[in-house]
């Protein structure tokens, strides 16, 4: 079944692309066959998206050619690429929020008569397609009401509706929970068995190894090599990607024994926003300890984190930090006590994208560090410089906007800021989601260092390997209730899975 030997349908032959002095792609050879899943991996900035833009006709290579079915082509835009049967799902969703699923899928090709839209038939068409792939989507639902997993399905439908033979998926799993990701991979397998060619960009090596027929590694714009999953393992791929060996999921035990109890939560109730809410949750966590919170997304994790951070008011229960009751303290005052937060949505919650790097480096501490009523310009600059130095922020200058960094660098900036002065309580949500191994390794190392320096860390993660690698103990949430507590050694997938599903272990 693996190692497809269908014909090559889309190929890049010796393509190079420069942006000024930067070489984003250099003499890259890459192809994909019908009935094959070809994974492309590499660090952020390795040139993966650039290569895809060349294949999809969004840009032209400086040299080299693109070939469809063995014939060289020159797409004048992605419209030509679509006509040639190529479809692409971008790293970031491109959906019209207010439009329904059907309107988004049919955008630009709405069926109609004499200038009148035929909503009924487009909804019927989309429903047929969605059911065919087992998507539980109502074509009439506005996209703004959908979660990330469902949005991803809408993006896929957009491509499938055009009956693309080649699908390019640029980091489709970056924003998905593990459950949603594995559902996506089922679809990918299905597409392959239909004889379509799939190019998949992803960061999680385990996923890549399980889903791909062929894996190509890109580093600094060059192809390092192609391997078949049977002959590769995570360590080897990691080495190819970054040029040195990284064992991301290795446990590093903490130095010394944990200190006193720092955080005491007693029967906390927090109302839900969209998920489950939190019910009767109690926890004692020590300084110098990482407590992992496991669970399927939307089972009370965010409610817990935001109640601790002071953005959500609990309806019952109490929170004490270092013996002090902070249950109804404002977020700004909690920050003064050393409560720090790395939120799950780095672009909308962790950064002001149009602020400069130095302004972002101050975010959240603008009041604590102010000099009179004036911004502490020197502190702000020094902080940004220090983060850039310690976290190797690529492309740093104090005035660069946060928007202009890659996801990995944005996350480094946030973590660097939240850890810049010793934290008493550090709340961290999905800190390495969608990051490449290099960036993820830096972040994990810093979290461990913060723990060793005496911070009490609450780590919400949807990545079980991450929890096992970082946490000193793992608490499982299901439906807003703690269903169990495990040591990382005992937290195998099966046990965690049962607790996450609400079945007592």
């Amino acid at each position, binding site marked *: 079944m693996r190692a497809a030997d269908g014909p090559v349908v889309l190929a890049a032959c010796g393509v190079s692309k420069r942006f000024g002095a930067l070489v984003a792609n250099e003499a890259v050879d890459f192809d994909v066959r019908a009935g094959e899943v070809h994974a492309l991996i590499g660090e952020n900035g390795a040139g993966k998206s*650039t290569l895809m833009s060349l294949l999809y006709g969004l840009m032209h290579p400086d040299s080299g050619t693109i070939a469809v079915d063995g014939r060289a082509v020159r797409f004048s835009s992605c419209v030509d690429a679509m006509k040639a049967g190529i479809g692409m799902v971008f790293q970031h969703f491109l959906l019209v929020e207010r439009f329904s699923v059907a309107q988004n899928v049919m955008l630009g090709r709405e069926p109609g008569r004499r200038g009148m839209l035929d909503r009924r038939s487009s909804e019927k068409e989309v429903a047929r397609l969605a059911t065919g792939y087992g998507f539980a989507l109502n074509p009439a639902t506005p996209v703004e009401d959908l979660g990330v997993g469902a949005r991803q399905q809408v993006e896929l439908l957009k491509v499938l509706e055009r009956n693309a033979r080649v699908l390019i998926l640029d980091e489709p799993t970056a924003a998905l929970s593990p459950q949603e990701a594995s559902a996506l991979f089922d679809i990918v397998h299905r597409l392959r068995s239909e004889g379509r060619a799939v190019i998949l960009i992803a960061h999680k090596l385990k996923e890549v190894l399980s889903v791909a027929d062929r894996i190509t590694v890109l580093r600094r714009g060059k192809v390092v090599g192609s391997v078949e999953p049977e002959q590769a393992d995570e360590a080897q791929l990691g080495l190819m990607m970054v040029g040195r060996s990284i064992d991301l999921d290795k446990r590093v035990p903490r130095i010394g024994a944990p200190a006193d109890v720092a955080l005491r939560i007693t029967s906390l109730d927090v109302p839900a926003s969209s998920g489950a809410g939190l019910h009767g949750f109690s926890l004692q966590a020590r300084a110098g300890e990482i407590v992992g919170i496991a669970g399927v997304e939307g089972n009370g994790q965010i409610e817990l984190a935001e109640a601790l951070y002071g*953005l959500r008011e609990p309806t019952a229960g109490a929170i004490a930090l270092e013996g002090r009751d902070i249950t109804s303290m404002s977020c700004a005052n909690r920050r003064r006590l050393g409560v720090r937060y790395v939120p799950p949505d780095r672009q909308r*919650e962790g950064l002001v994208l149009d602020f400069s790097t130095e302004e972002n480096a101050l*975010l959240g501490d603008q009041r604590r560090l102010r000099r009179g009523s004036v911004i502490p310009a020197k502190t702000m600059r020094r902080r940004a410089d220090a983060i850039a130095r310690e976290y190797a922020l690529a492309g740093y200058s104090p005035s660069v906007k946060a928007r202009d960094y890659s996801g990995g660098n944005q996350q480094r900036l946030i973590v660097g800021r939240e850890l810049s002065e010793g934290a008493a309580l550090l709340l961290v949500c999905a800190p390495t989601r969608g990051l490449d191994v290099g960036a993820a390794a830096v972040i994990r190392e810093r979290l461990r260092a913060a723990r060793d320096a005496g911070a009490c860390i609450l780590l919400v993660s949807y990545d079980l390997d991450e929890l096992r690698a970082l946490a000193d103990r793992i608490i499982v949430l299901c439906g807003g209730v703690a269903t169990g507590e495990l040591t990382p050694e005992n937290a195998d997938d099966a046990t965690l899975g049962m607790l996450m599903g609400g079945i007592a272990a």
Partner: protein
Amino acid sequence: MNRLASSFAAAALALAAGALAMLAFHADPIAAYGALLQGALGSVQGTAETFVQTTPLLLTGLGVAVAFRAGLFNIGAEGQLVVGALCSAVFGAWVHLPTLAEIPLCFAVGAAAGGLWAAIAGWLRARFGASEIITTIMLNYIAFLGANYLVSGPLRGSNAAPETAPISPSAVLHPLVSGTRLTAAFPLALIAAAALAWWLRRTVAGYELRAVGQSERAARYAGVNVGPAIVRAMALSGALAGLAGSTEVLGLLHRFNAQLSPGYGFTSIAVALLANSSPLGVIVSAFFFGLLQNGALFMQAYAGVPKDLVSVVEGLVILFSAAGMLRSARGRARVAVGPEGGVGTAPT
């Protein structure tokens, strides 16, 4: 294209479109714009009068700009100007203090009144999520009609005309240059622009206001109390418009009547848009609009082109400025499509 270039392009395109309109009616655009410039800058009196026209546009423009920076669309500058003018006129007529005390107090009353008026819309937005676009428009009507009622009834001076009693002589701002109407209000407005630029860039309150404007959500996560920040931003915006009203009363009319403003508060939206909400940019764009408005009569008299053409140009400036903004927003969405670099801008 950077923002400065885009502003100049918007102004140039608007003037060019105005020229086309003149050509269509067989008027000579070169003669018309020449007369306009001659009227606006050709003499000491003309130049001084251009600055006089610039002053309220500058102050209200700053008000609209600061609201924009907080992510708020304050369409109510005209109403806030009227409320500020009325209150400082009443106050100025009522108290008799030494000039050095009375003038600052009159300004303070005007600013406070305009600020409170705008804060209503800010509060409705923060508390109930009511769109400030709608509420400021409604507050405009309340201000206009309320002021009309007051000056034709309870607050009418001894005069038969519907206006308040004159302010006390110690509240009058005298011309800086004799034979002109140019008062200290103009340099004060310039100082206000510089102060606002500094405040936005360098103070914690300014930083938080900009954070709220760029991303309300991220600001909340940074511990900013977003509701009060919105109310404060609207209050500051309204205070600047109220100050504009005070300058008209103290420097020009010495009383309040309904003809006080030819719509400065509305033109100020174009002023702020053209300046891209940069306080220092507002100085330039307010001057541009002041020049157009002041030169318009001269253009009508000497080139036979109706002065309303200037309103057309103003409208076109809004159109082209907005088009420029759309363009840059689109550009950003496109980067998100292209590789890396741009991150996560969903097209809106």
